[in-house]
């Protein structure tokens, strides 16, 4: 197949960016989307042109490094799939695809398709943990965790921190990311002592980083490669109300 790519090129955070058009010939259906970009980059370098900068690492959908918009859809629009798992089988000869970085005020572009997602780390720093200094832990089976709670915690903890939810949201909100971590920890018995404070602090950190607010569009859930449900945002809002009214517990 022959594919036309329009890719956002921007040399650094301060430089202006623009779309540049490239043709990639001889794309086979067995290639992954990123392997097609690898081929493009080999061609560009052979011509002495700078390769397209994009992030990826594990290339199996778990590290959360990769991600950009393909024709306006985060990760390309295949349910439960990161862009590194996206196969060229899903595209056809002559397709024209526009690739752009995540667009959000809290995620400044560093180069081409790479953005700075360190705001996510700062939200975790605000309270996305259970304080358990090494060595002080009780015997593991001394803490009973109902199976349902463990399953819900896992569903939330499956978040890979890729940032697609923010990119897809018309408000550039980080509600799904933050709610997933709050749910993971707040649903577990181990997470109860810090539950109120965690919720207040993480929500405050999210606002400080200039992420927007949720207006129930649901775009985040639609593009989330781990299919994390919006229901967790409702849980977070519930915990936030509770923590605001009773900051020191019920």
């Amino acid at each position: 197949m022959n594919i036309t790519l329009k890719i956002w090129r921007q040399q650094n955070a301060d430089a202006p960016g623009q779309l540049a058009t490239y043709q990639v010939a001889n794309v086979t259906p067995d290639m992954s989307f990123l392997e097609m970009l690898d081929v493009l980059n080999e061609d560009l370098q052979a011509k002495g042109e700078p390769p397209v900068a994009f992030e990826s690492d594990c290339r199996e959908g778990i590290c959360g490094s990769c991600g950009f918009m393909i024709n306006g859809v985060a990760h390309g629009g295949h349910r439960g799939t990161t862009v590194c798992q996206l196969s060229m089988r899903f595209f056809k000869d002559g397709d024209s695809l526009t690739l752009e970085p995540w667009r959000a005020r809290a995620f400044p572009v560093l180069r081409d398709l790479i953005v700075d997602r360190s705001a996510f780390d700062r939200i975790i720093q605000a309270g996305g943990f259970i304080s358990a200094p090494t060595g002080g832990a009780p015997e593991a089976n001394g803490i009973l965790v109902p199976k349902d709670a463990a399953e819900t915690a896992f569903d939330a903890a499956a978040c890979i921190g890729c940032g697609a939810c923010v990119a897809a949201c018309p408000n550039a909100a980080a509600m799904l990311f933050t709610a997933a971590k709050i749910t993971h920890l707040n649903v577990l018995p181990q997470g109860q002592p810090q539950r109120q404070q965690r919720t207040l602090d993480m929500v405050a950190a999210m606002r400080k980083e200039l992420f927007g607010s949720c207006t129930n569009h649901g775009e985040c859930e639609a593009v989330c490669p781990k299919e994390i449900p919006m229901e967790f945002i409702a849980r977070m809002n519930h915990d936030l109300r509770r923590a605001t009214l009773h900051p020191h517990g019920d």
Partner: protein
Amino acid sequence: MLESKVPSGPIDKKWEQGRFEMKLVNPANRRKYSIIVVGSGLAGAAAAASFGQQGYHVHCFSFHDSPRRAHSIAAQGGINAAKNYRNDGDSVRRLFYDTVKGGDFRSREANVYRLAQISLNIIDQCVAQGVPFAREYGGLLDTRSFGGVQVSRTFYARGQTGQQLLLGAYQALEEQIAAGSVTMHSRREMLDLVVVNGRARGIITRDLVTGAIESHAADVVVLATGGYSNVFFLSTNAKASNCTAIWRAHRRGAFFANPCFTQIHPTCIPVTGDYQSKLTLMSESLRNDGRVWVPKKAGDKRAPGDIPEDERDYYLERRYPSFGNLVPRDVASRNAKEVCDEGRGVGPGGQGVYLDFADAIRRLGEAVVREKYGNLFDMYEEITGENAYKVPMRIYPAVHYTMGGLWVDYDLMSTIPGLFVAGEANFSDHGANRLGASALMQGLADGYFVLPYTVANYLGSNVLEKVDPSQQAFAEIKNHVHQQVDRMVNIRGKRTVDSIHRELGRLMWTECGMARSEAGLQKALAKIPALREEFWTNVNIVGTGEELNQSLEKAGRVADFLELAELMCIDALNRTESCGGHFRVESQTPDGEALRDDEHFSYVAAWEWTDKGWNLHKEPLTFEYVHLAQRSYK
């Protein structure tokens, strides 16, 4: 020369005895010490968080944008611990025994015993952090069994155990970052180690966004930078996993142990074309119900369904009647290579064998197979476009883990005082073959429970002079790093970094992969220096060193792989026995199985870098508690 510093006493008392003899650093004094931790995977994040909690000044470095991206995140299966919650005969002693035997008797007994002891604490620690392990209905922890052992001791979080353990360590690390005890340096790559008066005292890094070369000083340097499977270009490792930190430390004096010990996983999705960027692992559990076969006739291009039963060779069942398709990883991998070398491989390029579920579907029904393996079949279809319920899967082995690494003593200190090495980056616990679900255990054991003691002991027993990044020793090495970056950028040749890396990978896979021979290794040793020369005269890096430049990042890593590859071949050539993942074709039993040579090779090969080549140092291995025995799966 090589002092393993194993404490005296019976094996089950060594760690206790060792800890009692160790010097401590009192809490008020800890803030006077600074510790550099390079890497933020399981071992690095666990160590950095623990040091921070204790009150040291910690600087943690990662080339990723966030510590949570480290490749530990991709581990699927689980983590072993000798909790014996199943009441099925497990114990510290048994986990120790399984690990020493599984490693084909090439690991240090005392280290492995400590690992088995600490496994108990790891699960406690992770549960307290909120890791969502699988649970029974009563709320207790669930376990499952895993390859090569007879007890159920593997704790897991669906198929994403590595992710959940890493997030636990990452969150503990982020808490310390917020508290100010750890300073996180993301998007920084370590490019050299600074040794002052014989001690590791700092590192030189490159800021991957601005290109700035920076010096960092500390009292101790910990490397937790993972393994080097990507020397083969194609492996199951993440794209950026590399050997640069340990290799540059090696060139500053840290000995490299057992570099040729690599683990090759038998069930990966085969390569489909020249553009292939990495390989994807499929869980080994598939071999429980799938039957492995190839056509009997070489060059048989018929579709699998058109090949009648009597023209198929179920070669594992034929050669290993008692274990059949469930032989260990190394045996399964080697046999797949042999049948493909005979021209009987299947799929494009002929580098694949069938893993056929037709019998299982007939016996159990498609619904049962779907229930057991549905997610794996889906993943296979996503990548290959083939429906494995209808046509057999195609699989082929791929490099997966490296048991070799920097040599460390019992305290995890390298041959450079003050340089500690943890996780896959060291050589210590897995011998010549790692058992499933043991990598996560070792990474966390090193980070949470070994280094906090041994690093304190080092700080408490040595008087360390003040060092400063502005002093001569730092300036010289920083200058050296600058020059190396400039030199690479200015070659302006004709080949891309990836094309040279792929060529190296193919050579290593052919000559230093699943089966190694003297002739093949000699051939590789003749070709590697030429390829290195090609790199340093003909590589083309577009752009400069003063910007975000991914080709330059890759180039630095490939330059190091081009040196490490040579040492791997030298080590493989030196070790004329077969053991674990290292199979020398000259050393096999009459029926073609791996043959160890305990009389001559019961040692750790620790290589010292010199300007004229490598010197071999041997750490003898003695087995007092597990008796040496040859493995058999017939």
